């Protein structure tokens, strides 16, 4: 049960139950879809990007607790950040859930609750799906992204 509590920390369970910034964003000027067809997780990330900064961000979709909480906490972490800062957080988050926190990486704040994911290799793709959708939205890609080839 201890290992499970490392993965399913209270913050994650809370964001799964009550996802923040959930829904469409009327002022969005970028959006991208993430879809893992094998497990069925689906997320759409909406961005309002202006003056090189994320003015607002929202998501909708359905998935497991890890992907839902990851999307929810991601939207909270990104508001007001520049595109460059966002890319830095993306890389920091990716390191966190695959190898553990990077020395000298960005301050991930509340996103640290995902540190337990790296002990569950099959679930890394759940945590990273909304983040890859975010990057696709930033890069203006219109193909849905998937993380099912990722470990």
């Amino acid at each position, binding site marked *: *049960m201890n*290992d*499970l*509590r490392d*993965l*399913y920390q209270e913050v994650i*369970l809370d964001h*799964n*139950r009550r996802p923040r910034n959930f829904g469409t964003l009327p002022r969005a000027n970028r959006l991208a879809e993430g879809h893992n067809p*094998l*497990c*069925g*997780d*689906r997320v759409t990330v909406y961005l309002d990007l202006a003056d090189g900064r994320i003015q607002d961000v929202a998501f909708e979709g*359905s*998935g*497991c*607790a*890890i992907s*839902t909480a990851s999307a929810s906490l991601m939207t909270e972490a990104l508001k007001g950040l520049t595109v460059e800062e966002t890319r830095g957080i993306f890389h920091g988050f990716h390191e966190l859930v695959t190898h553990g926190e990077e020395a000298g990486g960005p301050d991930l704040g509340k996103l640290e609750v995902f540190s337990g994911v790296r002990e*569950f290799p*099959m*679930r890394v793709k*759940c945590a990273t799906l909304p983040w890859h959708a975010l990057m696709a939205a930033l890069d203006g890609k219109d193909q849905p992204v998937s993380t099912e080839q990722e470990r």
Partner: protein
Amino acid sequence: MSTLAAISKPAYDLARVRADFPILAREIHGRPLVYLDNAASTQKPRAVAAAIVDCYEGWYANVERGVHTLSQLATAHRERARETVRRFLNAPSAEEIVFTRGTTEGINLVAEAWGRGNVGPGDEVLITGLEHHSNLVPWQRLCEERGALLRVAPIDDRGEVPLEDFERLLSPRTRVAAFAHISNALGTVNPVREMAGLAHRAGAIVVVDGAQAVPHMTVDVQALGCDFYAFSGHKVYGPSGIGALWGRRELLDAMPPWQSGGGMVRTVSFEKTTYAEPSHRFEAGTPFIEGAAGLAAALDYLTTLGLPAVASWEGELLALATERLLEIPGLRLVGTARSKAAVLSFTMEGIHPHDLGTILDQEGVAIRAGHHCAQPVMQRFGVPATARASFGLYNTPGEVEALAAALRRARELFG
């Protein structure tokens, strides 16, 4: 909670049977393994491993055409395995048993070798709404290639195929009716005999995906009245990578080869090749020799235990598990057919099946979470995925309780 009093004992010695499957004694995350993913694949008894070792250490060589002793022995072993499969399915003749890599290959073989010559533009292929992708995609591809129409008999809220809908969708253009004997995602047991009768009256041939049925019930292809029946070794306690297809002799006789190369020919010249009789016509290349030996050992093991005894024990486990699962708050069973194998697909309110899969694994309980290669079934029930516990001959009432306890832990954790 209700009592265990209702459950009887299996007709075989369960402790001894479990001892035949060494893997069942291992631990997962420090807890005893509770293996409930039998619909995906089953564990193997020692007899299967012993048969494969015996092949490698006692009689291995390439089969057919060899003059030396080992080659003759290997050929004899393989043909004995074919006879074991014939007996297991009560097929009329061993020449009607084609060894394959598994159910998927068997269905592809029929769709290509029979389908291409017999399904044309405007013809129809009828499947049902509960099919595994392996009994859907080959027919879809055939229909696309031949300009035929794929029709789908719908399933109802219980996960059954209403016979009147199945019958309504048959037409004089229906060339093939292909359906599962037992649904892997829902556990539904289809009334194969009745469906085959209806399909034959419409002039269609009947192809049955038997992957889930063969480990759980006595299968008699003559009594079922179908034309082709495919199954996999790994779901019937045998090796993965081997399976068998039974086909009616007159249909096999009229079919062209599927894959071609060595082993399936009679005479070859640069001008013309003539082909071997069934079943060798459909077995190009050096086969999975040790796999056939392992499969025969698995079928012998099941026959010794007795399929009626296995079916009745799994029925007990299904009844107990259904009762225990329905006691869990927020649990919804997906698939409640009146005739059902020991497969329980379910969702839990507020907990995604993949989270359930991870949580149960930490408790040592192996279940499957996902779409079970039956995405249309998930769409029919309006869920992205389900969790699925599926039972085998070696499972125990204690394991049902372990499953229920692990699901309660999940409920606690997620609130």
